Structures are given as structure tokens and as C-alpha cells.
């Protein structure tokens, strides 16, 4: 089985960390992984995106034109990439920052998750990427949540390991919101 997911947002939302986290989780499950990042020259505020492909066998193309799942964290990425989701695929949208009004996406399961709001309720808006990862796991069922817990230890520098419990709670909140 080959899975692909596309994450996009603006620099500072943790899009690349989210991609790294899913990659480590897939490696934890013994998969082969390709993580392909693309970002602007700005440290914050520019466009940031990444594609993660994982498979038992060959990962094939690191570039995906029509992703099975897209997680779009801001308006710009929604406007640009929502319609590119594959037919029968899933588009997870940060409804705190995205107005989906007027756009018709037939054949795509659009899942609205108020990610900023949830992250704020969890105590820090910077956990928006963790909320997004939780929603992704819930909707795609591509990876086990235990694998993400293990992956956090690898994706985060040691000095931030104290934040792992809070991140796990944020992920669970994201999953819960995607379920509802």
C-alpha cells in the first residue's frame, strides 16, 4: 500500500515539522518514506508545503499532482490546492483561517477542523500542526497514533521533549474534532 499526504500553510505554522513527524511515524511502522519540502526564502510568513509518501515497497514519485489527502492550513493554500485533491480523496481544512464559501469540491471529502481555535484551547496556537496531524490520522487511518507518539521523540529536539504530553493531547483533540 502506498500513501501520500500534502501539507500546506504559511511559514511558522509548523507544516514541515508535521511532515517530518508523519515521516518518522511511518518509519516506526517499517515503511519506506519520501519527504519532499518546498518553502519560500522567508523564515516566517512565506508559503510552506511538503509532500510525504510512504509505502511498504518503493515510494515512487516524491511529487504528487493529485494528493489522496491534503491538509490545508491557510486561505492561500486552500484556494490554490483544494481542487487538486484526488477524486474520492480527503481535504482537511483549518476552518479557523479558511473561508471555504463558494467553492464546490464534488467527489472530495472536505473536513473542517478549527485548528487554531483548538490549539488555543490547548494553551498554545503553535500546536496547530499537532491538531492537524491528529485530524489526518483520524481521517486517513494511514498510521497508528502510537507511532506518532514514538515519532515525537525523534522529530523534536531533546530540549522540547517536555512538551510531548501537551502535543499528544493536541493531536487527540484534532482527531476528536475530525471525528465529529
Amino acid at each position, binding site marked *: 500500500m502506498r500513501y501520500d499526504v500534502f501539507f500546506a500553510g504559511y511559514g511558522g505554522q509548523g507544516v514541515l515539522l508535521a511532515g517530518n513527524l508523519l515521516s518518522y511515524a511511518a518509519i516506526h511502522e517499517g515503511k519506506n518514506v*519520501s519527504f519532499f519540502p518546498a518553502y519560500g526564502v522567508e523564515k516566517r510568513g512565506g508559503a510552506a508545503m511538503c509532500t510525504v509518501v510512504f509505502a511498504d515497497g518503493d515510494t515512487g*514519485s516524491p511529487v504528487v*499532482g493529485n494528493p489522496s489527502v491534503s491538509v490545508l492550513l491557510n486561505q492561500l493554500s486552500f484556494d490554490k490546492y483544494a481542487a487538486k485533491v484526488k477524486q474520492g480523496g480527503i481535504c482537511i481544512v483549518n476552518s479557523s483561517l479558511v473561508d471555504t464559501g463558494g467553492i464546490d469540491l464534488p467527489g472530495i471529502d472536505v473536513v473542517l477542523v478549527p485548528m487554531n481555535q483548538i490549539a488555543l484551547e490547548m494553551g498554545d496556537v503553535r500546536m496547530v500542526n499537532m491538531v492537524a496531524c491528529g485530524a489526518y490520522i483520524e481521517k486517513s487511518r494511514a498510521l497508528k497514533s502510537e507511532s506518532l507518539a514514538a515519532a515525537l521523540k525523534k522529530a523534536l529536539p531533546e530540549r522540547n521533549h517536555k512538551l510531548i504530553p501537551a502535543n499528544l493531547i493536541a493531536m487527540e483533540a484534532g482527531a476528536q474534532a475530525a471525528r465529529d
Partner: protein
Amino acid sequence: MQTTAAEKIFVKGNEAVAMAALEAGCRCYFGYPITPQSDIPEYLSRELPGLGGEFIQAESEIGAINMLLGASATGVRAMTSSSGPGISLKQEGISYMAGSELPGVIIDIMRAGPGLGGIDASQADYFQATRGGGHGGYRIIVLAPASVQEIYDLTMLAFDLSDIYRMPAMVLADSVIGQMKESVTPNSRPKTVLPPKEWVVRGRAEGTPQNVVKSLYLGDGEMEAFHWKMQARYQELADKESRWEEVQTADAELIVTAFGSTSRIAKTAISMAREAGMKVGLMRPITLFPFPKKAYAAISERCKLFLDIELSTGQMIDDVRLSVARDAEVAFYGRPPGAGSLPTPEELFEQIKKNYQACS
């Protein structure tokens, strides 16, 4: 290679280059920063000093390549890395290294050009790499990885081939392979039997005979003899070291050919074509010099239609056309490099469909 999850590491292509160089025994690095390859000097600047090695951020790419020449002349394993504009600056030094029969590894993580161009992936430096790049009519070994694992393994191979054949070796990748992170098995240095470096210049204190490393040949017939010797060496390289990958070519009615990052995108497009019932295969050269001519010739005896795909307006296609049988047809699909021009598998699938329908 079957391995357990625990043995694998998750690194960028550029980091894999640096790790492989250290594993291969490279202890000297000279370079000047440029996107999209700066992770290589970053990694080596951190790791080399602790290993008793030498890391120098040179004053320019020209300085760096000449430091590589000097280090290689003493017999140590040494490397430089850059991208488009920097690789252009290095060409004079590469020509002098080729003329002096010196080994040395050059990593080229291609970016869009000409000029400063852009930082996005490109394959438009194929000609520069495979035709020698500098003056004088020489060639260098050119290896084209298509994954992070392969850039790791080919970096080590570049050191071995460069030492065996006494010529510079280049690893030619682009920002997709350099910036992408993949799970990698950090293989050990291959146990290659290497010829002794009897030609090194290290001073005569060790009792070594006087050696001269130079690229100046003024004597009557001297330069010509050098060229014939090198031509024979290039032929030996082609006979012994041509490497390629074939995927599902046995029954193929259309063979897609591509190298590096583009071949990865093409692989998924080919799977889509197979699912749609089309008999399509992939021919991927791993050595760009020597180009695997005989393999193309053999394959074109049974399949008469090729589709060459490149992230350029077409350069490798010349080598493909020169290699395949006369009655084989070579179609082309390419896009000039730059932001937003990286093709998707879906796009390549459409091209495969179009060419496949034309043949059946």
C-alpha cells in the same frame, strides 16, 4: 536490501552525501556556500574537524576546486560541492585535474539557470557535466542518483571510481534529491581493491621517488599520447562501469527513459500506465558518463518506441538517440527548469498515454 526499521536513518539527500563522504574516507572538503547544497558544507564543517580532517570555506568556488586539486595530488580523498553558478566557476580547475589525471569528487546539486537562475530543481546541466565542462576535450565520471539511498551509495562509488580511473568524478543530482528526506540504510564503505597511488606528491622525506603532477604537455607527440591514453581509459570505463536500472522493460511497447529526480516521477506515471493496461517500462541511466549505450542498443532491439523525459528542453536525448537502434523512435517531453515547472506523475501519465496510443 532488507533491513529492520531500527537500522534506518531519516536524512536529506545533501546530508547523505556528507555522511557517505566521511564513510568513504574523505577527510578534506573545500567549498563555498550556495543553495540548494549548503547542507553538505554545514554537515562537514561540524563533523570533519573532530575526525582529524580539514574543512575549508574557500574564498570562492575557484579557490575551492584548486584546493581539491592540491589535496588530491597528495593522495588524500577530497571533495567539493556546489550548484550551477559555482560549478561553472570550477570548470577551469576540473579541466586541470583531468589534465593532471587527478581523482577528486565533485557534487553538483543542480539548480535552474542560466546565470543566477533560481533555486528550483533542474536537469539542464547534463551537457556541462557529461561533456567535460571545461576546455581541452576530456570527460569525467558522472553518476546520477534518484533517491537519498542512492546518493549515499553513489557518493562512495564516486570516490572509488575516481581513484581507480584517475579522473574527477561528479555526482549529478538536483534540489529534489538534495532537499528531500528519505529513510536510508547507512551502508559501510565497499571493500574495493584500489590501485596504489604511486603518483602522489608528498615531498621526498618519506623516501618516495620524485613525482610530477601537471597538465602541461609540450613535447612532440606528448599531448596526443595523453589523449589516446585517456580515450582508452574512457572505453574501459564504458566497458566495465556502465550502470543502469530497467523496470518492466521485458514486455514493454513504450520505454520511458529519464535520470535522477525525473525518473522517480516517471516511475509512478509508469505504474499508472500499467494499471491502465499499457505495456510501459523504464530505462534509467545511473552512469551518465559512461552512458550505458550498449544497454540502450540491446533494449531497442525489442522495443522501438522511447519517450525521453527531462527537466530541461532536452539534453540527454542526444545520447539516447545515438545509442538506440536506427529504426527506434525517440519522442521527447520536457519542461525548462524553474519555480513551478516540476512535472507531476499525472502529467507524465498523460504524455505516456499520448505516445502509447500513437504506437498502437
